[in-house]
């Protein structure tokens, strides 16, 4: 049984079916696969979610859960041999992104939907000044002159908190610190005021005091422009501070989806519970950390039934045979677990 909300009901070929009340982004049954020497890796395996305008949605999960691949596929940036399987749907701002031609797609990328990567040193062009790189985004997408585009780049650098922006604009990425480079990435992503920004672990490579600055900047820009933010992270602390809604991914699927308060207060999926308990916290000094035994299975070989059952303390016979569906457990709160219908199988956990 699935109770997933019907998403945008448009004919993929007729985007004019889009209504103003529809979510900004609606992803339906997204499947992304890679051909590998060990067989077909189903990195993202039937993911559906929506993002409303102005909303911040966090995707959490550990390495290999498919969160980055899902994010990249939204802009169709999946490198070969990866492919988005037929049957997947990505509707954004009234368009079906999977049927757009390259040219139409380019008008979306960077302009209406943009991306912030984890490591700005590899995402920025080392032989262009940062000002040129931001101005280039402006010139590609608008009719701005060279001079206007440069002025816009400098004012955007000021907006993201870079001191002496006229000087910094003439510098190359290697001349800037990691935190500064990430500010440049954010300036580049925001310069055309996109409606949706995808940020893939934007602060993971940064020190904690710089991370605090960058998160503050993202919050301020979100509040200023009303953009929607899809934030990919493995850090539940970042989730608690930034998210309005959270998607927890495991083994290529969403295993739990909830408003941020509900996720932390009443996590339902044993994987979410395990993640929350395994995180060391500053306000809980000493003691033993709870662990999740084992490791994430390989994407070429997802287990039958529930993909988490081998690591789950509550697993019972049905988990081996039946793949659980996402079911409603509260307002806007869904979990992919048989315990929702059969809570008697839940065992007491001693830490």
């Amino acid at each position, binding site marked *: 049984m699935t109770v997933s909300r019907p998403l945008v009901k448009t004919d993929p070929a007729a985007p004019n079916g889009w209504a103003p009340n529809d979510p900004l982004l609606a992803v339906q049954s997204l499947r992304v696969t890679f051909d590998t020497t060990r067989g077909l890796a189903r990195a993202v395996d039937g993911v559906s979610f929506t993002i409303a305008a102005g909303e911040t949605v966090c995707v959490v999960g550990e390495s290999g859960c498919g969160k980055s691949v899902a994010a990249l596929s939204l802009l169709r940036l999946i490198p070969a041999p990866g492919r988005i399987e037929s049957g997947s749907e990505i509707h954004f701002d009234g368009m079906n992104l999977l049927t757009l031609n390259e040219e139409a797609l380019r008008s979306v990328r960077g302009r209406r939907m943009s991306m912030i990567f984890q490591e700005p040193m590899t995402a920025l062009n080392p032989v262009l000044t940062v000002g040129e790189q931001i101005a280039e985004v402006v010139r590609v997408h608008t009719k701005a002159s060279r001079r206007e585009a440069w002025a816009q780049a400098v004012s955007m650098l000021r907006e993201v908190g870079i001191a002496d922006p006229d000087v910094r604009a003439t510098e190359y990425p290697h001349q800037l610190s990691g935190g500064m480079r990430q500010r440049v990435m954010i300036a580049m992503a925001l310069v055309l005021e996109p409606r949706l920004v995808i940020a893939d672990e934007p602060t993971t490579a940064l020190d904690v005091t710089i991370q605090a600055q960058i998160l503050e900047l993202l919050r301020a820009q979100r509040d200023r422009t009303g953009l929607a933010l899809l934030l990919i992270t493995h850090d539940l602390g970042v989730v608690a501070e930034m998210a309005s809604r959270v998607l927890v991914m495991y083994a290529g699927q969403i295993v739990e989806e909830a408003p941020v308060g509900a996720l932390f207060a009443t996590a339902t999926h044993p994987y979410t519970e395990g993640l929350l308990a395994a995180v*060391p916290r500053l306000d809980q000094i000493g003691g033993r950390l*709870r662990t999740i035994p084992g490791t994430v299975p390989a994407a070429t070989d997802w287990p039958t039934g529930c993909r988490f059952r081998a690591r789950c303390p509550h697993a019972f016979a049905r988990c081996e045979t039946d793949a659980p569906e996402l079911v409603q457990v509260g307002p806007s709160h869904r979990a992919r677990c048989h315990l929702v219908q059969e809570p008697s199988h839940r065992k007491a956990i001693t830490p």
Partner: protein
Amino acid sequence: MTIPAAAPLLSVRGLTKHFPIRTGLLQRRTGAVKAVDGVSFDIASGETLALVGESGCGKTTTGRAVLRLIEPTAGDIHFDGIDVRALRGEALRTLRRRMQIVFQDPWGSLNPRMTAGAAIKEGLIVHNLAHGAEADRRVATLLDEVGLQASYAGRYPHEFSGGQRQRIGIARALAVQPSFLVCDEPVSALDVSVQAQVVNLLQDLQRERGLAYLFIAHDLAVVAHMADRVAVMYLGHIVELAPRATLFATPRMPYTKALLSSVPVPDPTANRQRVLLPGEPPSPANPPSGCVFHPRCLHPAKDSDCARIVPLLEEKTPGHFVACLKESMTHHPTSSP
């Protein structure tokens, strides 16, 4: 854990490492990166001292200089009464049996062409501790101790997950039965669920073997679980050192306060005051005068003295050492950091 009055296992005084900056055709020495600049601390047997701080603060250099994996520029290191800096050749190698290191990246620290068993066994053979079947038996015991199957001894590093490789790195370090381990960001590269497994393993091994750890980390929440005492580094200096509970409950150095307040708390209902530090740490090649933190400091009493006088790491309350001119002393200092 209290600081024992008896001689500590490891005692470090005024440890300094300056990397020369050479420029021009003649590679003349034109300056120095002051990576570590006069660091002092003790570690008792069975104790965990955590060294925390951000990139470039000198924590990794400190860990390596203590083992003389890089040669210190100045300072004293005493391990179990032995003057580590005076040792040469065979004597230094013998001491290394008792001081080992676990690296952050188990990928980079394991030889890809060596099986896990061979990597663990190497130390046993080099130090002449076991050979042949006895060595194999010890490898099997070590693998079991770090939670891996003995049959994994024949596998190569690429056949393991990140968490498993880190367990092999730990088994390799433990093979020679050290009493002191430098753990350099041992869980930073691991996912949360696996990180918790390795943290617990390190704690178990410490209890069973009475190991002392110098635990280098940037993740303060992990440190809150692992450490007995915590030293905070900034730009080559220890700026605060205190027992764990004291440091997290009542930090006194403005940098420590900002650092602790920057850690995102996994609780959406938490209502916290964040101290957002202005700017970024300056370069250790050109550190500020006086207190190295003064250009970014938000202490209400900050004044021109801070730019002039280098604050000493002083014991302000028992066991709580702070390097700050504006934090007054409330007792007569007795112990060393």
